[in-house]
């Protein structure tokens, strides 16, 4: 089938970008979306044109490295799917697709569809962990975790840190990402001692990175490839209020 692509081309962070039109006359419907881009890049290379830069790695929907906006939707039209797991059979002959990088001030464009998501790492470094040095752990069964908590914790821990939530949010808020980690660790007994300082430190870091505020639009949940739930944001907000009442200092104790 024939697919028309309009792709955001931007040489580097400082240069201005623009949309460029490409036509792919022979797209096989069994291809994944990224394989279609591979084919485009092979064509461009043959013609001596600079191939399109895009981030990707595992291509099985778990590493969180890939992703771009497809016709205004993060990771494209199929719910619960990363871009690498989206296949061309979900499109039809003659479709026109607009590909843009994640749009958020906290994710500056590096080149074409590649953005810098370092802000996510800095948020985790601020407090998204349990402080346990190697070797100091008690036996695995010394601390019991109710199955329900373990399951809910796992639901939140499934976040792959791709950034689709931020890209889709009209405010470019990182609340779904933040809250997934806060809920994952806060729902486990091991995570309780640092629960309050964790939320304060992570939220402070997110503000410093200039992510926007959450207004409960729910766009993040709608595009999340791993089905991370909005209820995590409620958990985060509750933890945040409680931590502030308790008067914890707003610094992570690393």
């Amino acid at each position, binding site marked *: 089938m024939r697919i028309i692509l309009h792709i955001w081309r931007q040489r580097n962070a400082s240069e201005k970008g623009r949309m460029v039109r490409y036509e792919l006359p022979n797209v096989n419907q069994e291809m994944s979306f990224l394989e279609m881009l591979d084919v485009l890049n092979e064509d461009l290379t043959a013609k001596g044109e600079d191939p399109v830069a895009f981030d990707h790695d595992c291509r099985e929907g*778990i590493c969180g*490295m890939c992703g771009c906006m497809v016709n205004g939707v993060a990771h494209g039209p199929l719910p619960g799917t990363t871009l690498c797991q989206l296949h061309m059979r979900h499109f039809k002959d003659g479709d026109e697709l607009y590909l843009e990088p994640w749009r958020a001030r906290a994710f500056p464009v590096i080149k074409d569809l590649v953005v810098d998501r370092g802000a996510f790492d800095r948020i985790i470094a601020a407090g998204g962990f349990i402080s346990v040095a190697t070797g100091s*752990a008690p036996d695995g069964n010394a601390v019991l975790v109710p199955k329900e908590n373990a399951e809910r914790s796992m639901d939140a821990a499934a976040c792959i840190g791709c950034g689709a939530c931020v890209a889709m949010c009209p405010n470019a808020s990182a609340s779904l990402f933040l809250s997934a980690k806060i809920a994952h660790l806060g729902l486990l007994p091991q995570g309780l001692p640092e629960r309050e300082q964790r939320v304060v430190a992570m939220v402070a870091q997110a503000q410093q990175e200039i992510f926007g505020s959450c207004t409960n639009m729910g766009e993040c949940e709608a595009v999340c490839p791993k089905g991370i739930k909005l209820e995590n944001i409620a958990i985060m907000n509750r933890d945040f209020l409680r931590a502030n009442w308790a008067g914890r200092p707003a610094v992570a104790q*690393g």
Partner: protein
Amino acid sequence: MELDSKCPTGPIETRWDRHRFSLKLVNPANKRKHTIIVVGTGLAGASAAASLGELGYNVLCFCFQDSPRRAHSIAAQGGINAAKNYHNDGDSVYRLFYDTVKGGDFRARESNVYRLAQVSLNIIDQCVAQGVPFAREYSGYLDNRSFGGAQVSRTFYARGQTGQQLLLGAYQALERQIGTGQVKMFPRTEMLDLIVVDGKARGITTRNLITGEIESFVADAVVLGTGGYGNVYYLSTNAKGCNATAIWRAHKRGALFGNPCFTQIHPTCIPVSGDYQSKLTLMSESLRNDGRVWVPKKAGDQRNSSEIPEQERDYFLERKYPSFGNLVPRDVASRNAKQVCDEGRGVGETRLAVFLDFRDSIERLGKHVIAERYGNLFEMYERITGEDPYKSPMRIYPAIHYTMGGLWVDYNLMSTIPGLYVIGEANFSDHGANRLGASALMQGLADGYFVLPSTIGDYLASNKFDKIETSHPAVREVESQVACVTKKLLDNKGTRSVDSYHRELGKLMWEHCGMSRTAGGLEQALSKIPELRDQFWRDVKVLGSGDELNQSLEKAGRVADFFELSELMCLDALERNESCGGHFREEYQTPEGEAARDDKEYAYAAAWEFRGVGNRPDLHKEPLTFEYVHPTQRSYK
């Protein structure tokens, strides 16, 4: 060169404890005077960097991805083994040790494997404390399952995402150290060479993947946790970025390469659908618990699966291995699938697939039971192929999945270059010729959390380190060599893309050095690879410049290394005139068609020394002795 494994002797149960006591310690006040470089942030690299940071060393940590959390350990599905015996089903450290030595087809060191089994206990404790959400029983206790044909339930898991959760645990521990400034992280930075000064590993030269800047970093020791080399085959279950550049360039600087031909093929992957295919996706092995593997009896049978009557189907695993049936180990299942396809009985458009059929299980147990057990896998299959496996059988085919070979290391995980440590899949140490399911995660974390942090101190405490700057002539020399290779690739003005060469090499390797190998095929590959490599250097086309994000340039450097490594793999496979584990030489099989080991001639680890591109490398042999587990023939009839 004399290979000294530095393995302790005496009772195996106390070897690691006695060895640890004999290691020199670095005074806490002196730890901050040492800098250690860690390359790679998978389970091994991230856990090592975090643990070394906690100990007080200055750590410089590198990964080529945009974040340390992306490393390919994240994709491991099944679980992690530990000899906790929480189920009271007869498991023990000794049994895990025994199973691993036997599963590795008697080509691993007993001392290393025993330590791995011992340390497995601490790994689970550590991960639980970090908040890894392992599966739980209703009582709140940790749940276990039996995995990969093991007769005990020793596998801990977090749904089908165990690797992800363990990696996030290690990543969070690493980020905590980054937050304190103890570890300095360099994402999107690729190691392109190793700096050796006065015979010791003293640093690395890197390329900043965003700016293209070639930079060097010096340290007192270098740790490589850069994963395996399955992408030699182009199509594999590895992530697209997985590469052998770090270990290969260290090899060229003097680190011996151990058992390069030991590669593992996973039997249940989604088959190739076309020439554009970029990678293969693994489906968990657990599917073979309820799925029946079959092909049509008649070659070239093009009918739809539903039109082939029962008596015209060949359930070949059940027929050939009545007692294990569809649950035979990975290598046996893979080879048999290849065999029936070679006979022209493969299914699907490409004829390179076999059916994995759930019809009988659905009839017996009901669709809801199958959905409960494998719902997410069925969904994944449907997402990729567009077919509903509840209605028609899955099509599966084997794919490269893991490499047991890697840089040779001693018991301390140090390579033959003093100060260069290699951990996780990047080394050759613990799995012998075949890795058991749920053991890769165990080894990565054992090396990173518990083994390396102990052993590296001994090296730092017993050596003197002259201060060197990045202006040192040895550093400058390496930098200019790296810059020269980059320039050569960019100035080439060839006609073919990097990917087209990589695909061609991959096909060649899959054909001649894949699931089964013959002397003739390997010799053919050994004559074709250098030709193709020369053509690559003459004719590869890499656009763009070196001072920007240039993904073609990154790939070109990696593929250039694959060209050299692939030759060594074939040579090692040709040299090993026996079949063992993942290495199956058609000339060496039992009358029943099973792998025939030759313990008299080949009970050694092969360690190859680089002698220049195109020159025959030197083979060194580390003899393997088995004091506890006595070599037997594996049988699954």
